[in-house]
């Protein structure tokens, strides 16, 4: 009887320890924006406070225009991983791919500052073969950058057709079903997926079955994200981090750690 009680006590302690570890999981957030309309209502120092409170050890940030990323780097250089956004205002989501002034703008910034990725940009289907997008793929190759692509599977396929060695971070995992994501991950070894703005992989606080299998098959290929696409969403970062830790605790600890921050650290490196 005493032995049984001891075993139960140890099991309970182990469970609590796992839960506590999940609570304390640091996070690499690979999908953040700090665009022009956020700068005055959520100033850089407030952003840094939010990131710290959320337990985000590093964040890959893009901004429209890119001054927002620089402003955050100035305040917290070790915290921010810079990503080059091909938009000067968020309104360019639907025009950038055909804008003749875009490429010189990107080339100029790339010649002046260091970035880890180009994106997040929005492109779908055959538009991924437009000259601007092709040039962005070339620039990513030239500078050794990731392409952070908010796309359907067709557009992602076209990125790889243009550069089979491209490193693509598929924003929101394409909002695809896990079966499709698996197919893409198996086909393209340099494709990674962010889980920003997705909830389909979680059901009642648990990882949904199809996604669980996917995370376990590809533990090195997923990263987290908050997607602060409006200024208000900075005030969702802490809640989102808490929610992420909750569902991550339903995965084997090594898989949870990889998705939470190890993959982001490995792929995008330090902020410097």
């Amino acid at each position: 009887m005493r032995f049984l009680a001891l075993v139960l006590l140890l099991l309970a302690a182990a469970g609590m320890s796992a839960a506590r570890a999940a609570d304390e999981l640091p996070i690499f957030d690979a999908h953040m924006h700090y665009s022009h309309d956020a700068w005055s209502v959520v100033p850089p120092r407030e952003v840094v406070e939010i990131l710290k409170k959320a337990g985000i050890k590093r964040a890959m940030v893009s901004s429209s225009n890119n001054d927002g990323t620089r402003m955050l780097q100035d305040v917290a250089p070790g915290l921010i991983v810079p990503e080059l956004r091909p938009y000067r205002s968020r309104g360019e989501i639907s025009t950038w791919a055909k804008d003749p002034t875009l490429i010189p703008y990107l080339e100029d910034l790339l010649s002046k500052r260091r970035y880890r990725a180009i994106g997040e940009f929005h492109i779908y289907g055959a538009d991924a073969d437009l000259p601007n997008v092709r040039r962005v793929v070339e620039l990513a190759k030239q500078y050794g950058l990731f392409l952070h692509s908010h796309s359907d599977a067709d557009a992602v396929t076209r990125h790889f057709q243009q550069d089979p060695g491209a490193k693509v971070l598929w924003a929101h995992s394409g909002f695809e079903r896990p079966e499709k994501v698996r197919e893409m991950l198996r086909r393209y070894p340099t494709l990674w997926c962010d889980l920003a703005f997705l909830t389909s992989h979680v059901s009642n606080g648990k990882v949904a079955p199809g996604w669980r299998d996917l995370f376990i098959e590809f533990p090195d290929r997923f990263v987290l994200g908050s997607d602060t696409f409006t200024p208000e969403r900075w005030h969702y970062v802490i809640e989102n981090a808490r929610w992420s830790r909750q569902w991550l605790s339903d995965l084997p600890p090594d898989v949870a750690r990889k998705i939470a921050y190890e993959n982001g650290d490995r792929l995008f490196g330090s902020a410097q």
Partner: protein
Amino acid sequence: MIRFPLLLLSLLGLWAGGVFAQQLLDWTPEEIRTVEKHGPWPPSPVRDPSNKVSGTPAGILLGEHLFNDPRLSGDGRVSCATCHQAGREWSDGLARARGTVELDRRTPSLWNIGYLHWFGWDGAGDSLWAQSIRPLLDPREMNGGPARAAELLRGDAALACGYEKAFGSAPGTDDERLLVDTAKALAAFEATLVSPRTPFDDFRDALVAGNREGASRYPLAAQRGLKLFIGDANCNLCHLGPRFTSGEFGDIGIPFFVRPGEVDPGRLGGLGRLAASPFNLLGKYNDDATGNNTRRTRHVQRQHTNFGEFRVPGLRQVGRSGPYMHNGSLATLEDVVRHYSEVSPDRLHSDGIPLVRPLGLTAEQSADLVAFLRSLDAEPLARPRPAPLCP
């Protein structure tokens, strides 16, 4: 000599056929089917199985008395009717509600509220009675405290008598039970608030019945606005059915900062409060023993999109119910239409087909849409004072 009568006859013929024809736009069978779905009106009375006094005359009467009773509030000065005024479309005409302090949201109208399935701007209530508890207790609204309603029901002879008629026994000693019963009586009354028939309803019925003459009485501007509403503008994607609402939630690009450093999380916060509430339909106060009405509450899941979403309001009496949006940030119907015409797509996440997109309306189209919306208004009948509870 023959020419004049012929001319007269021709003119009369034009008047009889042509003028009416000009007053009725061409409506395709598909459009008529779509318009038909916005009626009939009024709908059948609704009864909430989770509320045993819903639809009962004694419960409704008790609810109306309680609705107007300021003694339910902490300082004895605020009743439900303070903010939900019959003469102001069961709202208050203010951009932001005023309880004990100014709140962050507008007072929602109570018209047709009994037909909803989520309650409050954020859907924190899964029944009308559960939603009615919140303002009673909220320190920023009526600040009544958990025992106030019970003390009133037990201490006031007329209310105690009304309670016994409605619930079948005298008020007991369980304060929480009496708080819930107070809310159930309030809900029974609120569910009777059905907005009047409108010019749109006459048009809809005539159009569906093939009554061209009747339909042609509906102003052309309203007809054009309705065509936009169900056509290019696609407003009926969310504002659907006889009440012109899905009863669900949406982010339509309205900023939701309430003050520097603070946002109103909308539906996301509502889901949290719903789950935490002892008064939700999964709790012990649900009177429906079958449990059939718990499906939504059991299965609703949080989504990232819920952050900053607010309930899609019904549009009946909308022209009389400003200011608009969850926070009263738009003063007039014209402002609302302008918002949808010019909304920034940047504020809306590009995931799949967006529910809202800038409509880019012309001035005439905007005026037509407003004319249609105003055709959903009508003058309500004056309400008689409620009968005594126990004459």
